[in-house]
Structure formats: structure tokens, C-alpha cells
């Protein structure tokens, strides 16, 4: 084709892009005039022009004609013309309906022809296009070609690969049928090429339908044994550098990995094969060429992964391990990498774990001397995998020493691994503390929060190491430059256990304080905040340093710090230290209680970092083996965790249920707590729903529950004693839920007092869809428990069960009333009977700012009022929603009492590990960034480090939030009633079917020390 050659050389000689485009335009015009149709072109020129078009297309220009000519070429009887036609079609085909029909017709003709080259061309075209249309047209035909008795070997080979391709693109279109059993028998074919192609096909098919291809196992084994035992000259064309059919062997071994170990007869033969392969690896190489060793090792590695997959032959596993051990010192970097990778999986097998451990020195050596970072990474993985109690100190020490020189990309991972291993296999906790402190010293920047939270949790939970930890930390802090994380750990531990080492004159309280304070100014704001908490803890621990600390707190750099958090703490702590008596101090600043045991958050983090596939399996197996150690992480069945954890990533520490809820505040046995948990719950409540529940006490609309699968939204309205609630179930996945049945469950106590009526919903919820359910509510009498909404559905194959409390509380039927000042106090006084009154004093978690409150509430506008200076000692302030509770009693006179109370906060750590909720979960007050309060009443003041606070309330937000609560709660806010303008007064009526109950409420914020709300009913 001279014309084509000339054209291509013209294009190559073009000086610029523009010249090239000009030349192409000219050529296109020429081809168009040739294809015009009035002249009949001979096959040769047609082929030539189609080739030119193809070349132009490959240069990146659009081709919009010539398809017809290409299709014409398909019907030619010459190989070269047909070939060019197919080439054009497979490169340039688009789903143009009329052409596709012609093309398919031509392909069909070729498939039906007896000419093997034509059949081959047609099959190649189908495979390289591989579209759905092609699959639709030919998926039924190709299996016939594949299994027909008279088909040539080369065609069979092409057919198998073509079918594989179609199956990969559209598995649903490839019909399974009787041909499958005959395909399996292709494994016995004479022609090794056919066997290789068939093995690829069968492996892919067997992954989807293991049952149908079960018979392939014995065939594969016998085929494999024939290959393995053959002399290198037997297979002629298929011997590659003295290795018999390496590709086929690898494919057969892969196929076998789809199935569990076969029955004993076949198994013996397979074991023999594998042994032969292992033996062959020991033989001296027959050739020095790299291809020889590559082919041999490929088979060997595949055999080893089959051995690991079966995990049943201790003998083989150990041999494999020894073989890999040899590779660990091989010259080839790739081999070392592969050996380490395979060993990683071997280490998790109980048979070979010990054998792997023998290579520890080599692996450690690899870690130190290896030049390739990816290999070092594998070495770290392997060390992690082979670690157990016996070698933990050695491995951890090696990893630590390696950390100093480690590549930056893997440092964080090593840090996590060291932290996990140190925790998991620690026998002696002083060793653990030393290790982690070392870790922080060496790679402080890579130590994430979870790691140092964990140290503190462990130190707090173990009495025996507390003293040692304090001493070590104290010594570590004496280094001239120490990492901020060390300061955090130091601050926390000394704050808790500094007294344990105070006896030593070298670490007297003042020295401890001065040491910490010398680091203060070098630290970032969060650390400084934590140190302030440490100081207030010191005030409690060592009364003798109190003046010094007060001086520090009083200094302008603290009291007038630009950072609002530091300023607030300084002010609060200073007040606390001056106002509170030692008893109160001792209560507020008491030592932290032990943390509940739960899965290590570090492990979760490592999993997240690594991605789900690789580590988890290993992790799971490891965990099963190591449960006994240190009560470590508890194995959590995957199904339950998937169902009940809203979002594992959001909740790093695992959201445990609170250990023990403090008892409801005093108010007499007759007074009940709306907010406390109901005792009878059908299924364990989904975590997270509880906080949501608390949020709904004062709110009618919003999201009640959410996890990866399901979202439940609520919209409700209440009037007098009637209400209506719309529940929206949203399917967050793309697949449908089956048997979707929400049921409302009222406990026996609740049944007579609350009427709920609802209609059943459609049992299937489509992916992404939302269904609605209406619940009609009637309040018959007062009640305390909340009904439970239990949802059951089938998602994928698993059965899911979710229970949430429906936020129907008594206060929903609470209607505000207006009342004059006289009326109010008259009634208030009438209700002086102790049974009718509940008074409670509670500490606010937030400082108050009346001004803000008013602006927010808008009720007291226009009333001139000075800025009521807030007193932000922790003992004053508003209340927290989660703990706000109204108790009321149905009095004889029909005037029960209501009151607000909140459980006092006891401890001081506000930040750090603990029952921490992600702040966003708690935020529900619009416009108030951190405006909600903790659902955990035990929230302490340790705001840094491991604490219990749900989230940290911002100054200024609290009081208004209390206000919203009063209003959201249902009672009216009464103005100009109370003679003291700072007090807040509310009144309302609870409507039930049987009675109407009035409630009065009064809140007296005590700006000096305490807020004193009192309720009256």
C-alpha cells in the first residue's frame, strides 16, 4: 500500500501542527471523493483508504465516515482485507444501530464458516469490542463454538478468552448451561494453549458459581501433577526457560484457591504436587537467565499461597516458611518483597507461626538495611504479624529504634503498631509506659491523640503503674526539649497522680509545678488549656502550692488571654480555688474513675488507615488469638457492629453506654423523671439514639436516628392531649430493604396511659427511597416512659434490627399559660406542701450572660438593664439539656409540682478520651456553635486529656440554651412576675385525657455562686 506509506511519511514530515491538519484535511477530502459512491472501488483501494482513515483516527482526529466501507471489507474473502475491516470495526465501533446489525451479521457468518482464521478474527473482534451489544448477540453462540468437537484448537483458545471477556463485562448475559460441564473437561485437552485459556475462564466462572465447577478441582490437580512431574523437554513449546508451562501452572494453582482443600484422595496427589514444586525450588537453577528463575518463583509463590489458603498441612506450611526464609536474603529485591508479603499471611496460621518467628533476626535486619522503602514497609507488617508475648519486647524495641530513621511515609503506621503491640502484649505495665513515652520522644509528631489517650486510660485503670508513670513522666519532662504530646501526657498524669511522687524532695509539688509551667509558654492553646486543668488539680492535691497557682491564674496572660477557652478556664479555676472549700474542691477535683474497657481505638485507627481488606482479616485472626492477653480488645462480631454503630469513624473510642447513670435527683418517690431511661426495652437501644432522644424533648422535628443504612426523621405536632407524629424512614443504601417492619412497643406501664395508632408500611423500601408512617397519639394520663420503635428489615443477606425510643414525653402535652405576678405567687404559696414541691440546686456547666440570653430570647427587650456581669465559676450557670428533667406529680388538688433540675457536674477534666461524643452530634441549637450540653452527667472538668465531657460548652451559649429549653419545654416564660429581675419564671398546663395539670417553674440564677431553680406545681 504505497499510498498509505506516502501519506504517513507526509504527516511525519510536517513542520507544524497546522501543516499536519492541512494535510489531513486534504486527505480526508480525497477519501470522501473516492467513497462518494458513484464509482465502485476495488478491495485493495478500499482497504488502503480505510487504513488511512484508521491512521488519521489514531492521530486524534474524528472520523465520521468510512464505516460502511469497513463493513464491506468484512465480507471480503481475502485475509488482509477482512483483517483491516475488523481492525477498523474494533477500534472505531460505536453503537450505531444499522451498522451494528451489519457487523453482527458479518461476524455471525464468519463464526459459522469453517475457516479457522476467519473464526479467529471474528472472535478477536468480539473480545476487543466487548460491549453489551456484542454480549447480547454472541454470548449464546460462543459456548457452542468452544465445546464443539470439531473446532480447531486455536479457535477454542480464542473462544475461551472471548467468553471470559464477555463474562467480565456483562456476567448476566452469559448463560450457564450444559456447556459448563464440558468446559471443565477442556482441562484435559491435548493442547496446552486451550487448557491455559480454559483455566482462566473457569477460574473467573468458579469465583461466581463455585458449585457448578467443583469437578474442575480433581481435573486441575491431575493436570497440575502431570505438568509438575513432566521432564522439561516433554512440553516442548510450553516449556519456558526449562520451566514446564509456568503460566498454566500458576493459573491452575489460582483455580484451586477458589476451593477448600479437596477430599483425601485428590488431596494426597495435590500435596505431592506442592511438595514437588517446593523440592524443585531447592534444585540448582538450570539456567542463569532471569526468566528461568522468575518463572520458577512465580509457580512457587502461587503454590505457597495455595498452601496458605488451605492452611491444613503443617508440614507444607513449615516448608513454605523455610523456603520463604531463604528468599529473605535473596539478591532480588522483588523476591524479598514477595517473601515478606507471603510470610505476613503465613504468620497468621497457627501451624507456621512458630516457624515464621525463627526468621525474626533476618526480618529485623531487613528493616534496618533494606534500601527499598516498600520492602521495609512489608518488614514492618511482618514484624507486627509475628509478634506475640514472647518476642514483643524485642520487636517493639527494634521498631522503636528503627522509627528514628524510618521513612516519613510509614512513621505514623509504625507508631500505631508499636502502640498496639505494646499495649496488647504488655506483661509489665512499667514497660508499657516506658515504651509509649519513648515513642512520644522519638516520633512525637506522629503520635496521634488516640495513642496518648490510651496511655492515660491505661494508667488510670491500673493502680500499680500510677506511681511509676508519674515518676517516669516527671523525669521525661526534665529533658530540655520535649514534645508537646509528652507535655500533655505529663500534665494529665501529674495532675492525677502527682501526689504519689510528691514525697521525694526532688519532685516536690512546687518543683512539679515549676517544671510543668516552664513548658507552658512553648505549647499550643489546647495543651495550655490542659495544663490549666492540671494546675487546678494541683490546687486540690497540694494545698501548699495554691498561692503560686493562683498567682499564675491571676496574671494577665491568663486572665485576659485572647483565647476564649484559656481565659474562661483561668477565670473559672481562679474562682473555684478561692471560693470553694477544700471539701468541695476535693469532690469536684476528685481522681478520675476508671474508664470502661473497650476496643482499642488505636486498632480502629490502624484499620482505617490500612483500608478494610488487608489488615482486618489478619487483625481478626490475631485478635482471636490474643483475647486472653490483658483482656484486650474484645472480638466484636461484624454483623452487630455494622448494625449498631452509627459510624465507626466518627466514634473513635467506641460509644459505650454510660456505665451507671446517677440516680434521679431527690423529689420523692412519687415524682418521676421524664428523661431517665425507660426500664423495659425490647432490643438494646441503638447507641446515639439516646442523645437524639434527649434532644427531642424540647424539639418536634429532626433526625432521630441515623446509621449507614437507615435514617429516621421525625416531624410531630401536639395539641392539648392529642398529637400526630410523622416518621420518615430513609434508605441510605442503593439496595432495597426487604421485610421492612417498624413496630411500636409500649411497655405495660405505658399502655394504659398513652394511645398510639398507626398503619403498617410497605414491606420493601427501595434504595435511596423514603417511606412515611403516621402515628396518632393520645395522652390518656400522665406517663413517664417513652414508647420504643423497633424496626426490623432485611438488608442484603443480613437481618437488621434497630430500636429507638420515640420522643413522646409528657412535656409534649404541656401548654404555656400566662399569669400575672400576684396569681403566680399566690398559687406558688398554696403549693407549699413538701410533696408538691421539688427544689433542686444544680451547677451550670456554662457561665451565664443574661444580656445574651435576652437578646436570644427576645422576651425582655426594651427593658433597660445593666450588663449583669457573669460569674463564670463552674458552680454557676444554666443547665444542661440532657440532664434537664422535670418531675411532676399528680397532686390531689390537681396541681402537681414541676421542677427543673440537673445533676451536678463532679469532675474537672473536660477534654480528651472518655465517653466523648463527636461535638456535631450534640449540636442542635442553631446559631450556637457549641451550645449543647453533655448527655453524660458525670462530665468532669478535665477538658483536656481523657475526660467525660460530651462536648465543651462555649461560654455565653449556655444560659440562652437553658432559656430555649424552658420555652421549648412547653411552659410560658413570664415577664415581670418575679420581683428579682434576674430570675426566670414559667408556667404551663399539661393536658391529658383525664386531667389537666398545672405546673409552675422558677429559676433563680445565683450569680455569686449557684443557680437555684425551684419548681412548684
Amino acid at each position, binding site marked *: 500500500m504505497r499510498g498509505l506509506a506516502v501519506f504517513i511519511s507526509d504527516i511525519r514530515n510536517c513542520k507544524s501542527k497546522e501543516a499536519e491538519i492541512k494535510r489531513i484535511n486534504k486527505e*480526508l477530502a*480525497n477519501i470522501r471523493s473516492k467513497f*462518494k459512491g458513484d464509482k465502485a472501488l476495488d478491495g485493495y483501494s478500499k482497504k488502503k483508504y480505510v487504513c488511512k482513515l484508521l491512521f488519521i483516527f489514531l492521530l486524534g482526529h474524528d472520523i465520521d465516515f468510512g464505516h*460502511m466501507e469497513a463493513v464491506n471489507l468484512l465480507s471480503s474473502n481475502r485475509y488482509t482485507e477482512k483483517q483491516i475491516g475488523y481492525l477498523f470495526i474494533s477500534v472505531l465501533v460505536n453503537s450505531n444501530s444499522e451498522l451494528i446489525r451489519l457487523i453482527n451479521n458479518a461476524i455471525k457468518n464468519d463464526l459459522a464458516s469453517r475457516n479457522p482464521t476467519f473464526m479467529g478474527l471474528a472472535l478477536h473482534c468480539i473480545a476487543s469490542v466487548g460491549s453489551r451489544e456484542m454480549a447480547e448477540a454472541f454470548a449464546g453462540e460462543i459456548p457452542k463454538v468452544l465445546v464443539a468437537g470439531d473446532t480447531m484448537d486455536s479457535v477454542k483458545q480464542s473462544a475461551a478468552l472471548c467468553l471470559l471477556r464477555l463474562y467480565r463485562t456483562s456476567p448476566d448475559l452469559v448463560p450457564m448451561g450444559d456447556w459448563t460441564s464440558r468446559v471443565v473437561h477442556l482441562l484435559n485437552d491435548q493442547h496446552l494453549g486451550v487448557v491455559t485459556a480454559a483455566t482462566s475462564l473457569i477460574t473467573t466462572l468458579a469465583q461466581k458459581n463455585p458449585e457448578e465447577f467443583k469437578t474442575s478441582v480433581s481435573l486441575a490437580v491431575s493436570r497440575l501433577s502431570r505438568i509438575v512431574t513432566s521432564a522439561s523437554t516433554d512440553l516442548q513449546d510450553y516449556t519456558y526457560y526449562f520451566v514446564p508451562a509456568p503460566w498454566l501452572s500458576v493459573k491452575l494453582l489460582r483455580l484451586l484457591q477458589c476451593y477448600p482443600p479437596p477430599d483425601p484422595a485428590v488431596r494426597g496427589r495435590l500435596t505431592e504436587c506442592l511438595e514437588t514444586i517446593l523440592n524443585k525450588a531447592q534444585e540448582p537453577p538450570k539456567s542463569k537467565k532471569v526468566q528461568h528463575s522468575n518463572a520458577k518463583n512465580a509457580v512457587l509463590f502461587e503454590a505457597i499461597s495455595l498452601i496458605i489458603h488451605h492452611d491444613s498441612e503443617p508440614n507444607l506450611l513449615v516448608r513454605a516458611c523455610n523456603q520463604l526464609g531463604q528468599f529473605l536474603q535473596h539478591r532480588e529485591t522483588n523476591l524479598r518483597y514477595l517473601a515478606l508479603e507471603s510470610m505476613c499471611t503465613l504468620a497468621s496460621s497457627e501451624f507456621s507461626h512458630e516457624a515464621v518467628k525463627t526468621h525474626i533476626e533476618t526480618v529485623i535486619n531487613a528493616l534496618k538495611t533494606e534500601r527499598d522503602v516498600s520492602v521495609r514497609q512489608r518488614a514492618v507488617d511482618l514484624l507486627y504479624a509475628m509478634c506475640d508475648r514472647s518476642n514483643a519486647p524485642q520487636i517493639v524495641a527494634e521498631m522503636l529504634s528503627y522509627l528514628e530513621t524510618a521513612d516519613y511515609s510509614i512513621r505514623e503506621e509504625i507508631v500505631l503498631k508499636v502502640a498496639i503491640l505494646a499495649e496488647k502484649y504488655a506483661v509489665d505495665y512499667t514497660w508499657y509506659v516506658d515504651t509509649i513515652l519513648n515513642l512520644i520522644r522519638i516520633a512525637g509528631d506522629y503520635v496521634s491523640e488516640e495513642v496518648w489517650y490510651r496511655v492515660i486510660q491505661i494508667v488510670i485503670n491500673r493502680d500499680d503503674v500510677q506511681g511509676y508513670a508519674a515518676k517516669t513522666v516527671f523525669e521525661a519532662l526534665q529533658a530540655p526539649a520535649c514534645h508537646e504530646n509528652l507535655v500533655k501526657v505529663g500534665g494529665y498524669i501529674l495532675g492525677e497522680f502527682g501526689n504519689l511522687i510528691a514525697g521525694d524532695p526532688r519532685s516536690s509539688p512546687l518543683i512539679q509545678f515549676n517544671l510543668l509551667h516552664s513548658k507552658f509558654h512553648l505549647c499550643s492553646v489546647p495543651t495550655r488549656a490542659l495544663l490549666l486543668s492540671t494546675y487546678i488539680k494541683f490546687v486540690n492535691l497540694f494545698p501548699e502550692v495554691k498561692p503560686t497557682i493562683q498567682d499564675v491564674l491571676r496574671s494577665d496572660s491568663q486572665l485576659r488571654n485572647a483565647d476564649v477557652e484559656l481565659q474562661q478556664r483561668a477565670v473559672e479555676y481562679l474562682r473555684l480555688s478561692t471560693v470553694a472549700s477544700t471539701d468541695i474542691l476535693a469532690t469536684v477535683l476528685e481522681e478520675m474513675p476508671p474508664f470502661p474497657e473497650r476496643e482499642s481505638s488505636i486498632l480502629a485507627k490502624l484499620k482505617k488507615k490500612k483500608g478494610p481488606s488487608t489488615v482486618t482479616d489478619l487483625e481478626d485472626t490475631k485478635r482471636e488469638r490474643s483475647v486472653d492477653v490483658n483482656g484486650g480488645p474484645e472480638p466484636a462480631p461484624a454483623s452487630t457492629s455494622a448494625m449498631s454503630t452509627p459510624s465507626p469513624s466518627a466514634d473513635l473510642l467506641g460509644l459505650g453506654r454510660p456505665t451507671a447513670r446517677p440516680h434521679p435527683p431527690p423529689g420523692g418517690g412519687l415524682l418521676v423523671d421524664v428523661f431517665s431511661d425507660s426500664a423495659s426495652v425490647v432490643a438494646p437501644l441503638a447507641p446515639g439514639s439516646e442523645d437524639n432522644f434527649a434532644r427531642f424533648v424540647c424539639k418536634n422535628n429532626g433526625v432521630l436516628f441515623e446509621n449507614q443504612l437507615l435514617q429516621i426523621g421525625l416531624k410531630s405536632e401536639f395539641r392539648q392531649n392529642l398529637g400526630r407524629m410523622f416518621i420518615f424512614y430513609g434508605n441510605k443504601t442503593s439496595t432495597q430493604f426487604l421485610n421492612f417492619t417498624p413496630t411500636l412497643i409500649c411497655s405495660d406501664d405505658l399502655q394504659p396511659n398513652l394511645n398510639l395508632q398507626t398503619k403498617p408500611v410497605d414491606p420493601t423500601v427501595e434504595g435511596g427511597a423514603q417511606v412515611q408512617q403516621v402515628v396518632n397519639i393520645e395522652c390518656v394520663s400522665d406517663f413517664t416512659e417513652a414508647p420504643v420503635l423497633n424496626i426490623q428489615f432485611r438488608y442484603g443477606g443480613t437481618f437488621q434490627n434497630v430500636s429507638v425510643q420515640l420522643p413522646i414525653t409528657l412535656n409534649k402535652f404541656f401548654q404555656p399559660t400566662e399569669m400575672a405576678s400576684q396569681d403566680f405567687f399566690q398559687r406558688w404559696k398554696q403549693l407549699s406542701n413538701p410533696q408538691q414541691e421539688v427544689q433542686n440546686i444544680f451547677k451550670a456547666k456554662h457561665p451565664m450572660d443574661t444580656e445574651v440570653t435576652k437578646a436570644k430570647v427576645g422576651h425582655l427587650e426594651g427593658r433597660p438593664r445593666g450588663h449583669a456581669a457573669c460569674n463564670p465559676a463552674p458552680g454557676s450557670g444554666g443547665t444542661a439539656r440532657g440532664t434537664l428533667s422535670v418531675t411532676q406529680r399528680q397532686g390531689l388538688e390537681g396541681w402537681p409540682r414541676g421542677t427543673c433540675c440537673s445533676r451536678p457536674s463532679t469532675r474537672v477534666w473536660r477534654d480528651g478520651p472518655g465517653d466523648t461524643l463527636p461535638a456535631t452530634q450534640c449540636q442542635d441549637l442553631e446559631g450556637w456553635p457549641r451550645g449543647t450540653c453533655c448527655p453524660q452527667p458525670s462530665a468532669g472538668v478535665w477538658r483536656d486529656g481523657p475526660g467525660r465531657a460530651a462536648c465543651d460548652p462555649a461560654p455565653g451559649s449556655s444560659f440562652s440554651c437553658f432559656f430555649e429549653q424552658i420555652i421549648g419545654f412547653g411552659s410560658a416564660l413570664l415577664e415581670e412576675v418575679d420581683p428579682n429581675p434576674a430570675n426566670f419564671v414559667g408556667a404551663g398546663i399539661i393536658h391529658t385525657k383525664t386531667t389537666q395539670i398545672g405546673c409552675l417553674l422558677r429559676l433563680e440564677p445565683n450569680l455569686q455562686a449557684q443557680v437555684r431553680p425551684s419548681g412548684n406545681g
Partner: protein
Amino acid sequence: MIGGLFIYNHKGEVLISRVYRDDIGRNAVDAFRVNVIHARQQVRSPVTNIARTSFFHVKRSNIWLAAVTKQNVNAAMVFEFLYKMCDVMAAYFGKISEENIKNNFVLIYELLDEILDFGYPQNSETGALKTFITQQGIKSQHTKEEQSQITSQVTGQIGWRREGIKYRRNELFLDVLESVNLLMSPQGQVLSAHVSGRVVMKSYLSGMPECKFGMNDKIVIEKQGKGTADETSKSGKQSIAIDDCTFHQCVRLSKFDSERSISFIPPDGEFELMRYRTTKDIILPFRVIPLVREVGRTKLEVKVVIKSNFKPSLLAQKIEVRIPTPLNTSGVQVICMKGKAKYKASENAIVWKIKRMAGMKESQISAEIELLPTNDKKKWARPPISMNFEVPFAPSGLKVRYLKVFEPKLNYSDHDVIKWVRYIGRSGIYETRC
């Protein structure tokens, strides 16, 4: 300020590389090549930002000129400089081509040293540069006096003209060069039109003459016409509204601002006195009337009529009409009454050329285009018909009213100067949709 200047050939090989500032590294040269010259998609923006470095480029035939900077410079200034640089190079060695640049690279480096100093543009006046940068090398006949004169001129107030120039005949040429741009709808509605023009002056005047240039600028005419209302109405029609204009550095801008009079001491030789742009009351020299009819799927009939719209005594030249053809054209037959027409497959267009055409005439071409049916459903986008021409008048309507020359020291007066004025209107992008 400009950090460096590179010149590449069409393959992206660096011909000239001059770095003025340290913040431009060696890799900047490659960055431009990789991201602009060899970019997969054609880069259409003349300014490219790569890794916090800005590249300003212009292309002359196959040569890329790129100015590089890391600072926030005035882009208009950089482009102005690049154009000036092209002019200077063209004045020294003719067409800017790879070969010319390779042959003159010493000269180019010398020029670059002179016209750009630490990235700040300096004197770029060809006439002045030619006095001290010569292609022959410094000749020994330059006396000390002459050299000191060069120094005082280059550093003096009037850097563009040296003293003591003497001509036997004081002569000046004034060219008004305009290019008219148009986009018209098929129905003959003007969608957008503007004229960008230049006034180029070639002066051969003795001494240090003070010149004053006047044209029919609307503002000036109205100001003058205040006294005689009668005149305003008469000349008001002929005055033009100039949208914006820029001047050569020799023009006293303060005077222009206050009195709107253009006075200057011209450089010796050729220079561009001013540039301007007008958008109102443009005389469109040609009207193109297209007629396209699709006959079935395989045929297209095109008829185009052009009408000249100016005084019959004037002659338009170099007329070329370019009629785009669809991408699936397989054959074309053309019939035209005047000039020559040809289908150019490499450009996908019918090109119709007419050498000369008088005003108020009309001519027509008709073509039959055969199409190859394609399976591509995309409709042909019908690009506009474009046109090129040259006419001997200013389409904006600009008229030179006067150019006065005063030379107080030497005794020749305005009347002794021989003055020539010429108007040339060319087509810019002159398109009509079809």
C-alpha cells in the same frame, strides 16, 4: 517586573534565553515548553500560570516569545514590551524566523541587554537603538563627541531624538492605517463592529521640530465650535468619536489631557504616533449576502453576493472571500462572474479572490457542494463567511485636519515642509454568518 525572556522555535527548542532575575529558575524554560507549546490541548490564553510563575507569550509565525515573571506585573505592559521587541527585531533583521534568530543571536542578546534592564523596559525606539547598536559592530569612525552625544541623548529628556539632524528637504509622511472588524447576521444586521486604527508617521525634519497634529475628533471640534454655532452643525457630522487612544512616548500627555491637543517632538524616521479605536458610525466597505440551501442530505447550494459600499471613484484591492464548506464535502463546483474561485480541501473552504473592485458595484458567486452521507448525527455548525480587502479610505471616518511643524531655532516654517497623507482601510475579522 519581567524576570526573563525566552524565544522558542515551533518544536519548543530554546533559541534565546535571557534571565534577568534570580527568582526565575532554569526549569521555567521547560515548564513553558511542556505546558504550553507541547500541551495536549491548544493553549489559547496568552497568559499562563504555572507553579506561581506567569508566562506571557506571543507567537510570530513559528516563533514563540515568552516573558516570565514571578511578580504581579502589569500584563498590558509586558505585552506592549513583547510587541515592541518584535518590532525592534523586525527593524534589525527583517522577518522573525528561526533562521534569522539563529543568525542574529549575538545581536538579540545585545538588544535584550539594552531594552530591558533588571526586568524593567528601557528605550525601545528603533531609531535611537540603531545609533549605538549596529549590525556591523562599532566602527572606529565614531568620534568621542558622537559617543558623548549618544550618552546625553539616551539619558536626556528626549531620548528618542538626537540633536543636530539636518535634511535638505523637510518632508513628512502620515499614514492612517485602519482595520475594520465586523460580525453580521445572515439578515444583514450588525452584531458587532469596531475599527482599530493607527497613525504612523515618517518624519525627515531638521533640528528639534515641535509638531502639532489635528484630526476631526468630536470633542475638539465641539470645543472649537462653541464660538461659531454655525460651524458646529456643519463639521459636527464629519467629526468622529474616538473610544480610546494611546500615544507614542513623544506626545505630551499633559497637554492632551488639558487641551486635547496632540503636540510632540517626533523621533527621526518611522514611528507610530497613535493608536485608537472607534465603534460608532463605521463605514462598512463591503456587504456580504449569503444564501445557503440544503438540497437533500447529499447536496448544498451556496450563493454569495458582495456589494461594495463606497464612492465609485475609489478602488478596493486584494479582495478575498472565504466560504467554509461542511466537513463531509466530497466535491465542489463553482461559478463566479468576477475574479477566481477555488475549493481548498486542506482548509475546508472555497476561496474567492478578486483583484480590484470599484465602489457601488456588486458581484456574485454560486457553488454546488456535494456531501458524503455520514452516520454522524451532528449538524454542520455553519461557520461564518469571512472576507479580506484593502480600501483607500478610513472606515472610521477619521480625517487629518492639520499637522503643523514649528522649528524656532532653524529658519524653516510650516509651509516649507512637504507633507503627505495616506489612508488605508483593511479588513480585520470581517465575518458574515450564513
